[in-house]
Structure formats: C-alpha cells, structure tokens
C-alpha cells in the first residue's frame, strides 16, 4: 500500500479511498461550475462593463434603440417583488406547517401535505397564466381598490389600478414560494424531537407556548426554508413576467408596472443582435448572480444572529 493512499484513507481501505476521491471530485466540480459560470458571464459582458462602468448599476434607462443600458430598475423590481413575496409567504407558510405538524386532524394532514407537495412542483407558466386570468383580475377588482381606499395616503398604494404590476408580481411569487417554504418547514418541525414538546407540555405550557419552543428549535431549518423560497422568488421568470407589467421603471406605487432581472433576460435575449445589447443582457445575468449571492449572504447572517438569539430565548422559556 502506497503512502498517498494511506493518507487519503486512514483506514487503508481501497474502497474508502475511491469513495473519498469521488466525493471530493463532486465537490470540486461544483466549485468549478460556479467559477466557470462567473467567468463566462464576466467575459461576455466586458463590452458593457467597459462602456458603462458602475453607471450600469445606477442607470435607470434601458433603451436598445439608443444603445443606452442601465440595470437599476431591474434590480429594484427583483428585490422588491421578492420582498413582497416573503412578507406574505413566510407567515403563511409557518402557519400551514404548524397546522400540518401539530394541529391538523389525521385525515386532513396527509392529503394537505400531498397537496402542498403538488403545488410546489407545478410549472411556473401555469401560475403565470392563472395569474393573468384570475389573480390579476381579483386584485384589480377587490384588493387594490381596498388598499387604495384605506391606505391610499401611503405612496405605495396610489396611482391607476390595473391589476398588472409590482404587487401582482409579488403576490404570485408569494403563492409560488409558499408551498416550498411550508413543505420544508413542515419537515423541519416534524424533525424536532417529541421530547421537546412533551417537556414543554409537562411544564404546563399552553399549545402556543409549546409551538414557540418547537419553532425556536427549528429556527435554523426554518431560515433555510425561507432562503430556499427567496432563491426561487429571485430567479422566477415566467410567472412574474406575465403579471408584473414589464416596464423598467422605479415607481413608489406597488400598483405600477415593474420588471425583474430574470424576466428581461428571458424576454430580450433571443432577439438581441447588437453586441452592446447582448453584452448588457449578460451583465444583467451577472448582476442577478451577485444579487442572489448578496441576498443569500445577508439572509444567512440574519439567520445566524436570530438563531443565536431565539435558541437562548427558547432555552430560558
């Protein structure tokens, strides 16, 4: 047995060594793929990076006729629609998951769990078509007039009501990520040891107090679920583009049309012929990559701080 093999596998088993090498290769491949993607995106967008520099990030104009490109409106649309989605879907998903794990009667829990899984797997174009024909009309007729009437003093809910815009984009994203988040949270909560629940109940905790203990225990997993949902929200293309109005503008009102990074790439890439146009679209892809990266990093950081906090609370409670 040679020295290197011994080093690779302390037990000296050849099978172990091969297994280890394969796993190492798989991990390395992942790094290589990510690296290659960033490299390819960067190299294909050099033209627009050189021409617009940092102005690309702060530019609001997107005009293929004049060859003037800026990404700010798309970055705003992506971040804002994802935030709206999380604002709606996180509480909803937690509620669904808690209900399924702790409260639902047996005959309901199984079919509901199955339904959530089906919704999570539904293709996004189906959501998009439903979004145009059902959701947009519902928001236009019922929700947006209500918001305008009672919260119209906020700039968020002013302007013409069309049913197509940032709010609708956010809501459809919320509907799409809710099944994912709730499915994962459900798994996380059912993985919390029953001894925790029993301990809480034995101490005389109410159902709500017990739930809080369980939630605190599952906090890192719940955060992971939220990040997973956020990832889908940021990258979602088809469904959003069908209801968001596709207008590269930053407006204070949620009723106004907006545009996301993923949507504009999908919409304009196939027909873009001018080099600077193509290069700008690829740079949007690079930015999408970075936005995903930064948002994930921030989310992880928040999770890390929150979980430290809540675990403490959970233990003292």
């Amino acid at each position: 047995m040679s020295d290197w093999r011994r080093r690779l596998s302390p037990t000296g088993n050849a099978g172990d060594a091969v297994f280890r090498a394969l796993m190492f290769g798989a991990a390395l491949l992942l790094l290589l793929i990510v690296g290659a993607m960033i490299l390819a995106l960067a190299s294909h967008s050099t033209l627009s990076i050189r021409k617009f520099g940092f102005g690309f990030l702060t530019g609001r104009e997107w005009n293929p006729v004049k060859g003037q490109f800026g990404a700010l409106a798309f970055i705003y649309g992506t971040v804002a629609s994802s935030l709206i989605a999380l604002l709606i879907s996180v509480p909803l998903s937690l509620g669904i998951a808690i209900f399924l794990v702790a409260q639902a009667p047996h005959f309901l829990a199984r079919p509901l769990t199955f339904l959530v899984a089906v919704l999570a797997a539904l293709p996004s174009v189906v959501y998009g078509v439903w979004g145009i024909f059902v959701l947009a009309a519902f928001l236009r007729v019922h929700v947006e007039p209500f918001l305008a009437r009672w919260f119209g003093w906020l700039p968020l809910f002013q302007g013409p009501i069309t049913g197509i815009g940032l709010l609708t984009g956010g809501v459809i994203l919320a509907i799409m990520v809710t099944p994912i988040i709730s499915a994962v949270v459900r798994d996380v909560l059912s993985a919390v040891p029953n001894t925790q629940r029993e301990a809480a109940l034995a101490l005389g905790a109410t159902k709500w107090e017990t739930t809080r203990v369980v939630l605190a225990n599952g906090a890192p997993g719940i955060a992971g679920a939220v990040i997973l949902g956020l990832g889908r929200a940021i990258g979602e293309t088809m469904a959003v583009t069908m209801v968001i109005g596709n207008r590269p503008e930053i407006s204070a009102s949620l009723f106004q049309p907006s545009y996301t990074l993923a949507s504009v790439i999908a919409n304009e890439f196939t027909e873009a012929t001018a080099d600077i146009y193509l290069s700008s679209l690829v740079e949007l892809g690079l930015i999408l990559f970075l936005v995903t990266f930064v948002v994930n990093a921030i989310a992880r950081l928040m999770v890390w701080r929150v979980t430290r906090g809540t675990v403490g609370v959970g233990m003292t409670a």
Partner: protein
Amino acid sequence: MSFSKRITRTKSIVFSAMMALTLAACNGGTRNEVRLQGAGATFPNPLYQKWLSEYGKLNPNVKIDYQSIGSGGGIKQIQARTVDFGASDAPMTDTELKTSPGELVHIPTVLGAVVITYNLQGVSKPLRFSPDVIADIFLGKITKWNDPRIKADNAEPTLTAADIAVVHRAESSGTSFVFTDYLAKVSTDWKQKVGADKAPQWPVGQGGKGNEGVTGQIKQQPNTIGYVELAYAVQNKLPVALIKNASGNFVEPSIEAVTAAAAASAATTPEDLRVSITDAAGATAYPISSYTYILAYKAQIDAVKGKTLVDFLWWGIHDGEKFAKDLQYAPLPDEIVKRAEAKINSITASGKPLR
C-alpha cells in the same frame, strides 16, 4: 453460473442492437438523403412547419428541420454558418450584412400584419384610428378615450373619459418592430423619441409576454388598447380597429389588404428586396404589414445541399403559397414572386447556377 450467462446474453443483445443501428445508418446513406437545417423567426414557424411536412411528402429523400428560435438567433446562426438557411422578420441591417462571411440573399416568403385590438365597453362598431392618433396614444399624449381626436374618427356616443391603458409586447419581437416602424413613419415625434425596434423603450403602458400575454391583459382589463399579429387576432376573434392608410381610407386588416400593401410597394421595392412596407400607398392597402424572409448564402459551399435548398425555396414561393391563407398569412403578390424567383436563381455553387 447463471449470473455470467445473463451477462453474456445482455452483451449479445447490446451487440445486435448496435449492429441494427449501424445497418439502419447505412441504409439511410444509400438512399441519398439530403438534410437541411434552418433556424430563425417564430412568426412564420407554423407555415414553415407545414411547408416542411408537405415538401417532405413530395421529396422523401429530403429532410429539412426548422427551429423557431427568433429572428435574432436566425441571423446569428446563418452568420456563423451553423444552419443552411436563416429566417428573419425584419430584413438584416447593412452592418449585419457587412459582418457576414459571405453575400446573403433575402427571399421573402409571406406577409404578416399587426392589428390594433382593444377592450372598450359599449362600442357597437369597430373603432377607427388615424395614424397620428395611434402614435400619440402610444406616446402617452392622448390619455382619455373621449379625446376629441379619437371622437373625430368615431361617432360613438359611449366613448367616456376613462383612462387609456396601453399594452405592448414585453419581449423583443418582430411584431413590435413592424408596429414601431409604422409609428416612426407616421409620427416624427415617435421617430425622435422612441424609434423603430424589436424592443423599444415604450413611453407608456405595460408589457404582456407574447401575443397571448398582450391579449390576456387586454381581455382582463377594461379600457385597454394594444397590438397583436393578425393571425392571432383572427384565430381568437379579437375586436380589431380600422386604420387610415396613406391614401386616406380606413382599412380593415385582412389577408387581401396586406397583399395589396405589398403590391402597392412593389415599384419602390429595392433590388435586394429588403424593404419596409408599412404605411404603404394604395387605396386598399393595410398600413401595418411586413414581409418575413428566408436568408441564404448566394454562394453555396455544398452543391447538393445548395440545389436542395434552391428547389425547396422555389417550391415554397410557388406551390407553398397556397397554404398561407389557411394559416392567416398573406401570400406574396405576383410581382414580388417574380423578383424572388430572380433572387433564387442567383444562388450558385462553385460559380454555377443551381437552377
């Protein structure tokens, strides 16, 4: 024992399957099969697929594939010589032609049109629009349905003070190009502020994804206006507006009116057939229409493939045209067929004409 036997049997099955495949491949070779690959515009795709299937029935040894990846992709692919022919709704620009590795010819195949559709309660007759009114609606200058300039063309008592909501295509599309090309011709304001493009910076409105997205948003929201392909509007029975053409007549979009626009522009169509026929003269011409083209190299590298391509194109602009109407495309007028014939005849391989 039995395990090793099973392996031997599997091996022999795999081996015979491979043999069969090899034989099949040889068979294909002996029949002199010619394969052509094309890619490009999505708009004529239904017609081209029909052509391929009909032409395939007549010529079983010819296999042509067409991938509708978009006009931009079609131009890129033919420039890279990865396809035998490209297809584009808008003719290639001078710069695009210059950067191509060889001289390309434009063969017009059929015509399409863009129609104005709307969702307005209580109007009894199709709406009528003058060109400057359409431009100003899409520029955001005319914002109410009861604007005096809309009323001037429409004697509708039900036109109210409702806001006009504009819907345009979200993604780059030849449909948007034809529409904005028309607006740039009829409005200097549009030409300066927006221009003609597959994905211009729209001054107002919301974007719908594809013809179906635009239609969906218009059907769902009252007081909207937008544009879609003629074929799509006919198949979905959408309300369409009459548009005042260059001769001052309000024309309903129809296949005949589109062919008439092409015929009226024939005299001014340049030799290379790259032409915009929006705002065409002619009493019955519908003003928002355009050709769609197949792009091919004038000097073909492979004589056999070149001959096949030339025969297919010839068949397309003659026999193929009869399939156009059923699919809601307008066939080429006779003058243009003659000129397209000349273009097809100019294609050569090693300096020899292929027809």
